[in-house]
């Protein structure tokens, strides 16, 4: 995210503050009502809606109740899609014209517009409305919360230093970048700073681009922070109606929050689609409170992010060593000429076949990354011919979690995958091959992440990572160079 992007975001954000129903009068009169009639909002309703931006006609509560609260001025209301000066989705902040569909709407009898970018959360048209719980008087600047911190693990010296630095930044409301190699133990670094924030009564969000990462983090956080409500939000998760002080969410789910968090942590800050998707970046800015600090955590920060960190004087922590203290496995190159053609002739290229047979013989679990689903699907039956438990996974595969679990449990010998498994997964003693490492989908950061799957376990700190290619690319060299650089650090 560049400086300019951020300032643009800030500007837009100010422009599109909730369109309130004659703000000053409504809110002051509602406060009078509160006293006069003794109308006290139910805690459940208040808790649910605080910081959320939600469809007026589709809440977990009876419509009559919602309408009563609206009448009493507890909510701000805005059309779901703003049409002037140009189309903008109020939920995901998308403004790209191709992602809006305009049609003649039978409900409002006019031309209506809806945003396809966030349609999976329910279609919202320009004639639909979103409601937001009105800002309260600051909760007597944070009552302290009761949180139990039950983590007994120990941090390495590097982790401890990063945790202290992050804590300092958060206390000063300053943004922070944690740049740590794959396998440095990033999650453990977050525990103490998050604990301190929760204890101070702050509301914390850990956002990550991938559902898999949310699912992996959730039980770990539940174990560490007992006594408080934690929500894991991802596509398909149930709506919890309580107030959660700690929220783990995919960046997509942030669309449903506004002005909600005192601390924002963006994990895997470089991962697709976050790097690409400006709407998601805007969602992060929208979900946090105006001055809340953002901490970015990544193994492969983009140059943009590094420059921004320097220019805006964010806190910075750097960890070059894995938690077990061993060096990062360095990728080796292996030419695999015309691999695509060979696969389409129903054959596995010989060198790759040898590699797989070696893994099977050594009884080592393995991952083979493919550049496209099509090529992978072409190759899958060929591999299954050698070893029937081999399966393939991709982003649209509903059984993905299960297949990975089976690899972990040694029920499967190996998996073929697209870049979907490039991060977030840890499999003991896994060996990794990239087929077609020269394909443009394998950027240097993707290759670094993929290489980072190897040697994560303390008892198996090394392993093979091989880039099979039809020509060496700059991205491959870049990845290898960065990994070697890390290994030179003390």
């Amino acid at each position: 995210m560049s400086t300019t992007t951020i300032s643009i975001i800030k500007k837009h954000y100010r422009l599109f503050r909730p369109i309130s129903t004659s703000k000053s009068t409504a809110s002051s009169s509602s406060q009078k009502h509160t006293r006069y009639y003794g109308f006290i909002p139910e805690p459940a309703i208040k808790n649910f809606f605080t910081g959320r931006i939600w469809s007026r006609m589709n809440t977990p509560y009876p419509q009559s109740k919602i309408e009563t609260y609206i009448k009493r001025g507890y909510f701000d209301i805005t059309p779901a899609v703003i049409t002037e000066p140009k189309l903008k989705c109020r939920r995901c902040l998308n403004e790209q014209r191709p992602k809006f569909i305009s049609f003649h709407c039978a409900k409002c009898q006019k031309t209506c517009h809806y945003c396809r970018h966030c349609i999976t959360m329910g279609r919202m048209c320009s004639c639909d409305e979103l409601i937001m719980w009105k800002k309260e008087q600051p909760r007597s600047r944070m009552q302290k919360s009761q949180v139990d911190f039950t983590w007994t693990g120990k941090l390495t010296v590097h982790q401890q230093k990063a945790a202290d630095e992050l804590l300092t930044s958060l206390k000063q409301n300053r943004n922070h970048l944690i740049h740590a190699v794959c396998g440095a133990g990033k999650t453990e670094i977050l525990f103490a700073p998050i604990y301190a924030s929760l204890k101070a009564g702050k509301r914390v969000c850990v956002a990550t681009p991938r559902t898999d990462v949310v699912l992996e983090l959730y039980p770990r956080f539940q174990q560490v922070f007992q006594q408080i409500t934690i929500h894991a939000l991802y596509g398909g998760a149930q709506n919890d109606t309580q107030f959660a002080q700690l929220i783990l969410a995919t960046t997509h789910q942030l669309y449903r929050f506004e002005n909600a968090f005192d601390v924002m942590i963006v994990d895997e800050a470089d991962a697709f689609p976050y790097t690409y998707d400006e709407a998601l970046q805007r969602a992060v800015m929208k979900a946090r409170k105006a001055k809340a600090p953002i901490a970015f955590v990544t193994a492969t920060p983009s140059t943009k992010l590094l420059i921004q960190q320097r220019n805006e004087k964010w806190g910075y922590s750097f960890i070059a060593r894995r938690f077990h203290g061993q060096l990062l496995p360095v990728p080796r190159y292996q030419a695999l000429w015309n691999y695509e053609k060979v696969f389409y002739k129903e054959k596995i290229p010989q060198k790759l076949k040898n590699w797989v047979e070696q893994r099977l013989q050594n009884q080592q679990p393995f991952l083979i990354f493919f550049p496209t689903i099509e090529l992978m699907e072409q190759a899958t039956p060929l591999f299954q011919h050698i070893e029937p438990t081999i399966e393939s996974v991709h982003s649209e595969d509903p059984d993905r979690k299960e297949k990975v679990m089976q690899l972990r449990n040694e029920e499967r010998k190996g998996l073929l995958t697209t870049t979907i498994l490039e991060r977030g997964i840890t499999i003991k003693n896994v060996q990794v091959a990239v087929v077609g490492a020269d394909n443009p989908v394998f950027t240097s950061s993707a290759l670094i992440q993929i290489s980072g799957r190897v040697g994560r376990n303390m008892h198996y700190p090394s392993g093979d990572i091989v880039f099979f290619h039809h020509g060496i690319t700059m991205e491959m060299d870049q990845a290898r160079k960065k990994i070697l650089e890390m290994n030179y650090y003390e």
Partner: protein
Amino acid sequence: MNKPIQHCLLCERELNQSFGWEELLRKTLPQTICPRCEQRFHRVEQQQEEGVVSLYHYNEAMKDFLHRYKFLHDIVLAHVFNRILHEQLKNEKRLVIPIPMHLENLKTRTFAHIDELLKAASIPFAHHLIKLSNEQQALKTREQRLQTPQLFEVVNVTEIKGGNLLLVDDIYTTGTTLNHAKRALLQAGAKTVKGFTLIHG
């Protein structure tokens, strides 16, 4: 429609649209989904119902499509089947009549899904039916379905008197809807009434 479609409507993959002379001369409708998504739909090889033509079987892909089109109300998905519907119906001599929605349901859904399918395929049609009840046929027992007195009322009767008609619906399940509509139209004086559905359930 809004603008040329450059990405598959179902999976967002980039489409390799060709805008050659052939397309321009023959005025084919634009491709809207990628080959990968297209092959997930399965054509009906042999028609199973008397007097009804259905194009596709109901499978996972179709279930997903219906969910997104009819439940999530993603109206642009009306274009997914634009080419095949055009191909099938462009030389249709009979009067094409879509099964209508009840007015209340129409307001909730914000669009008439059969009409939109036909519009996307540039097939002209006319409305001669009005849906009388907004109850879902699928939710009823067989008994109740048979007892339902009348689902449709015919309007502009003079225009269909003695005519050959083609009723269009999205999915054929029990046949109740088409049968009710057919009976009403025949009683109003139509000469023949056949059915056409996108899906055979």
